[in-house]
Structures are given as C-alpha cells and as structure tokens.
C-alpha cells in the first residue's frame, strides 16, 4: 500500500516538474514580450527624438548699417527697439548671394534663417550699441526646412516638386556648407526657450516651469489633505460606522474614475463657481489634487495599516494619548510608505493631459509663467500640441519632449524607491 503511493507520486512527479517548467516559461515569455514592447517604444522615441538635441546654425555677415535700420545719429531706446532689423538681415543675405532674382527666390532666400534672427539681432544691437555701422559675423538659427535637410530628413534624389527645399535652395545650402557657414550644435535653446510656432525656436522651458508650478500646487494641497484623511480614517474614525464605510467606498471608487471627469468637475466648481482663471497652474494644480487625492489616501492608509499594532499598544500602555500615539509613533513609522505613495501620485499627475483639456491648459503660451496665476501649459500638453503641428520639424521635438518627460518620471519613481529602501523598517 505504502509502496504503491510512492510509485504513484513518482509517476506524477515528472508531470509536475513539467508543469512547473511550463509555468516558468509562461512567466518569462510574458516579461520578454513586455520588455520587447517597451524597448521598441523607447528605441522608436529615441531615434526620432535624438536629432532634436542638435540644431543647425547659420553664419551670416551682417552689415549693421544705420541707414538700413533707419536710425539717425541721435536715437532713443525706443527707436533702437523698433528699428528695421528685418531689412538688415534681408540685405545681408542678398549680399552673400548676389544674383538672386524674382520674388519667389528672394522670399526663399529670407527663409534660410529663422524668423528669430531679426529679434536676435535686435537684442544684440541693444546690448552692444557700438556695433552699429560695422560688419559682424553672426550665427543665427537656421529655418526648420534647412535644419531637417541637415539632419537627413530631405531626400535630394526626390523630384523637385516633392521636396520642401527646391533645387536652387539646395545650391545655396551647398554653398553655405562649403564655406563652413552651416553648423550643427547642441540645441541649448530647446531647454531655454518657450513654445514657438517656428520649430527651430520652440523649447520646453515654459512647459517645464508650468509643470513645476502645477506640481507644487498639487503637492501642497494633496499631501496634507490626503495624509490627514488617511490618518483620520485609519486611526480615529469609528469602526463599523455606516458613514465611514460610505466614505471609504467612495474614495476607492474615485481612484478608478477617468481623469477627464475631474477636469469637468474643476471646470464646473473652481472656474464656474469660484472664478479661478482658466489656463493657470493654480487651477491645474487644484484639478490634479482632486485626481491624486484617492491615490495618496489609499497608499497612506496601507502604510499606516502596515505599522504593527504592538507599537500602538505599547505607546498606549505607557500612558500616551491617542493623538500622541499616532503622531509620535505610528505616522513617523509609516512616513516612508506615505511618501512613496505621494511621489507615485505626483508622477501620475505629471503625465496627465485629459483633465487639463477642460480647464484651458491645452493652449499656445509663448511666455514663461512667472507665478501660479500666469497662463501656462505643462509638459504632456506641450507634447500633445507639438504632435498636432503640421511642420515636419516638430516630430523630432515631440519625441525629444517625451524623452524629457520620461526622464522626470524615472527620476521621481527612482526617488520613491530610494526613500522606501532607506527609511523602510523591518518589524
């Protein structure tokens, strides 16, 4: 009888091992598939986005002629600001390419340099008024089409009508290249400029500051409110009370509500009722607070629950009040978990666009916000707006902005991991 059982087990053993092996295989292949997807996404984004970190600059001999600027010998600051810099740039380009004729070609010639050249020259002259009536060799941003060409985005072998750069423009570019007047440099302006409709001038500084301000508002509101709610519900609220149960169910439900609903709520309550202005980090922060609160409350409660009852009981036994027990012992012990939850909630809010659509943060804003009541946009919205722009050169910038956003998210999640590792207590 005994022998028989062993035999039966032995017979089944091979099957059981095979089953285990198969299960392992399923697991590994599931992970492999997800890694493959992730890698293809990351590689795709990097390949499209990396060129955006370089930018083509163009060198021009600028003849800063006071006559062209329409400046007299005596001029005020105002006149210097309003002077005709576009004419100077135009004339300098003409001097470099003599023999350009016809309206179409002249216009194309102007389009070698970015529109920002005019303002760059203006600022340069205002800072150094002594350069008036001299010749200067200056580097300007190249127009997006030239930039795309320099990065290999325009195929010379295509028929002329299918190219953004025509044959005569390619001749100019070749000439500039042979004179070393075209150069690719690290794209600093991508990080120091605000949004622009000219791809070569567009940067993410405005969106980054906007994200920062919005996150600041979100954190300042959601952390204290969320944590206090969690502490009350976990430590002080009466057990088996209908109202407490109702609140709990609602919080858990809210965590699963689509984020756009919070946007609608924000639109109705904060903008409609309280008159908070549209499109500002303040309203964005308020709406994202609503969105992150359930996450923070749920994770904080889990962290508080993980503190062993013995800690509470010991404190109470030694005569500490419930408030003392909670704030001197339980909350400090739960803090790493609470902070981790908060950071994850914030990371979620950082990547959110849908609720912001409703409250007017999906907008073109060319000025860097100075405070929480200046109109601003945020990084994911910037990505959305660029992905919808017709200019070809925006595609690479979209991917580059995604890379920056991913960078921020990785840093935040990494921070959460470090905090957990560092402060975690083993009971």
């Amino acid at each position: 009888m005994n022998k028989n059982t062993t035999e039966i087990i032995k017979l089944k053993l091979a099957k059981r091992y095979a089953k285990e092996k198969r299960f392992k295989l399923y697991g590994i292949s599931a992970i492999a598939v997800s890694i493959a997807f992730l890698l293809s996404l990351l590689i795709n984004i990097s390949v499209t986005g990396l060129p955006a970190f370089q930018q083509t600059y163009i060198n021009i001999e600028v003849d800063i002629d006071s006559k062209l600027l329409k400046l007299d010998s005596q001029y005020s600051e105002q006149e210097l600001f309003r002077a005709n810099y576009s004419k100077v740039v135009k004339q300098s380009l003409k001097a470099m390419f003599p023999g350009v004729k016809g309206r179409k070609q002249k216009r194309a010639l102007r389009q070698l340099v970015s529109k920002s050249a005019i303002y760059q020259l203006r600022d340069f002259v205002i800072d150094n008024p002594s350069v008036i009536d001299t010749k200067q060799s200056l580097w300007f941003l190249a127009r997006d089409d030239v930039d795309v060409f320099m990065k290999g985005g325009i195929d010379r072998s295509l028929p002329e009508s299918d190219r953004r750069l025509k044959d005569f423009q390619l001749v100019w570019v070749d000439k500039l290249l042979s004179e070393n007047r075209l150069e690719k440099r690290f794209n600093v302006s991508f990080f120091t400029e605000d949004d622009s409709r000219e791809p070569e001038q567009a940067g993410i500084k405005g969106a980054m500051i906007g994200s920062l301000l919005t996150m600041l508002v979100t954190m300042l509101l959601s952390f204290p409110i969320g944590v206090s709610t969690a502490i009350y519900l976990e430590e002080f609220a009466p057990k088996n009370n209908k109202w407490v149960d109702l609140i709990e169910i609602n919080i858990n439900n809210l965590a699963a509500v689509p984020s756009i609903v919070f946007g609608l709520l924000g639109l109705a309550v904060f903008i409609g009722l309280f008159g908070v202005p549209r499109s500002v980090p303040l309203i964005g922060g308020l709406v994202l607070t609503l969105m992150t609160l359930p996450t923070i409350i749920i994770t904080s409660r889990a962290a508080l629950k993980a503190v062993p009852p013995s800690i509470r009981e010991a404190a109470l036994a030694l005569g500490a009040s419930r408030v003392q027990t909670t704030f001197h012992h339980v909350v400090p012990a739960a803090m790493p978990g609470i902070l981790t939850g908060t950071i994850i909630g914030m990371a979620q809010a950082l990547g959110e666009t849908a609720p912001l659509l409703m409250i007017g943060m999906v907008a073109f804003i060319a000025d860097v916000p100075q405070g929480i009541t200046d109109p601003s946009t945020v990084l994911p919205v910037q990505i959305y707006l660029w992905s919808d722009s017709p200019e070809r050169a925006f595609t690479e910038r979209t991917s580059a902005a995604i890379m920056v956003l991913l960078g921020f998210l990785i840093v935040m999640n990494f921070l959460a991991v470090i905090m957990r590792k560092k402060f975690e207590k083993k009971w």
Partner: protein
Amino acid sequence: MKNIYKSTAVIIASSAIMSISNSVVARDYIDVVGSSTVYPFATVVAETFGKKTGGKTPKIESTGSGGGMKLFCAGNGISTPDITNASRRIKLSEYNKCQKNGVKDIIEVMIGFDGIAIANSKQGPAFNLTRRELFLALAKQVPNDQAGELIDNPYTKWSDINPALPNTKIEVLGPPPTSGTRDAFAELALQGGCFTYDWIKQIKKDSKTAKKSGDKSLASQLKKKYKTICHSIREDGSYVEVGENDNLIVEKLRANPKALGVFGFSFLDQNSDVVKGAVIDGVKIDFEAIADGSYPISRPLYFYVKKSHVGKVPGIKEFIAEFTSEDAWGEDGYLTDKGLIPLSDDARQKMSDSANGLAPLKMQ
C-alpha cells in the same frame, strides 16, 4: 515632525490666501479661444505680436469653433475670452446668444481660406473624383434610381461607383464629428455631391420657400431632412475616424497606400513628399486653385473680437492690426508660409479697414 505639520498648515493657509487675492487681479494678456484650424495661424500672429511689441503674448486655446463660440458668448466679463477663432461664420443662434449674454458689439474678421485635401500615399493610384462620387462613396444612404428613394450604401469598391476609378476598397481616413474639418467636409464635399441630385436639392428649395412663407417648423423639418441625407457618413468601416490629429492621418496613409485621407491643406503642403492630393471636380488642389475659388472644398476662416474688451485688455487693437497687416496675411506674408490661403487684394483692404475701424457685426 511637529515642525512639518506647522509648516504644512502655514502653506495651506497661504495658498488659500493667494488664490483669493489672485482672482481679483485684472488680465494683462489677450485671451483667445476657438477653432483648431485657425490655431496654427493665430499662434504665429500671437508670437510675432509678442516679440515685436515686447509685451505679453496672447494665450491661444484650441477648443474647436463651436466650443470657442460657447466660451466667447458666455458673458461680457473680463474673465471671458476676448477673441474667438472660427473655421466657419458665426451662426445666427450663436450671435443671438451673444446678444442675450451682453456681448453686444462683435467685430468680425475674415482672414483667408483653408482648403480641405482628399489625399493618398504617393505609392497609391491617382484619384480623379467628383463631389458626387465622394458623396456616393461615403454617404450612409445613397439615392436609388428612382427619385425620392434611398438605399443603404451598396458600394464597396471605388470602381463600383465609376469604372474609371481604381479597383480598390473604399477606405477613407478622416476627422471625427467634433472637428470643424469634418463639418466643412460634410458641408462642402458631401452636400455638394448630394445636391447634384435634383430631388434632394428640391428639398432645400422647399425649405427656403417654407421659411419665406413663415412656416418655420416645416422649414426646419425639411432642412433636417436634407442634412440627414447629405451629412450622414456611413458607419460600416469604409470611413475611419482617426481623431483630430492630421499628422496621424498622414502617417497612416504612408503605411496604407490604398486608403484616402481627409485633412487640412497645410498638412498636404508640409508632407508633399509622402502624400498627393486628389483632383476634385477636375481641379487639382494647390495654393492658387484655393485662392481663386476654383477648388470646390475650401472654406473661409474668421476670428471674432469683443469690442467692449478693447481698451480694457491691453493690446487687442495692436493684435488685430498685426493679424491684418500685409506682413502677416498678405500674399507674401508669414501666414501663407504656414498654409493660409490669402483673400484677394481688394477683400483684404476692405476687411482690414473694417476690422481696424472696429466696425461691429450686424446680423438680422
């Protein structure tokens, strides 16, 4: 730990105070809402305006024409937008709503034209379509041989409609109903093709006569009837809604040479190495054909200004002046670089005069 709680309390209190004090402050930037089609043009003007004057750059939200009108007409307070962009003219109902909510004087500015391209991949066959063929390919129900009868759209291949067309499945990628481009496409292309059937056109005529004779309910009933016939797009998979991202449509056309796409002319202009526009009613889509009106699927673009905000919000007059300057909307202006089709010289002159003179719009 105690300090943390104290400082948190201070922060909450201060942020609450900040939020109250801030809502009182007046706005020092122009607030623009409206059409996603006008957005690429308005933003360039805003940016140039900001850089030229050194002042604050207007804030431009892309809400769609209808959404913009709703916000614009919601009231006359300083918290409402100053300007709304539209890829169609303001409707009488919207104008009336504006009047009712205290937005009395509205300045209308027509800025130019936008063409809607029907395009496919460079690898695909050349399409030479009429609007009637487009209607037959995409309508939910199409007229039968007998006048007044409708049947569910039976066509699955282009060659079913016209043997001269390619022998491929009808597959058109286009914007969803929320989009102004879709509205214009239905209005100009499908309705244009629809009205080549006399009996459908007759419904419209009947509706107009009913309106004149004062029978409003019959008029609107008939209007609804022909709109349902002409504007309903089939839902059996031949028309695929791709979301309001024209770049996505271009990308999908590149991947699928058999499909056609519907999007704004500026996207065709920027991607001429990937996609090619179809010939519609014998006219090839290009800059000139849209400008002189021979390309049938083009629409005017507008923006509307609240006159009462001029002077209250700094820069509105200057913004209008920038938008209507030859530098911007002229034939060689920077807006044409972005794909705007300019008005004729005379129309520009007239429009610029009335806009800069802040002449309010009058609708009956």
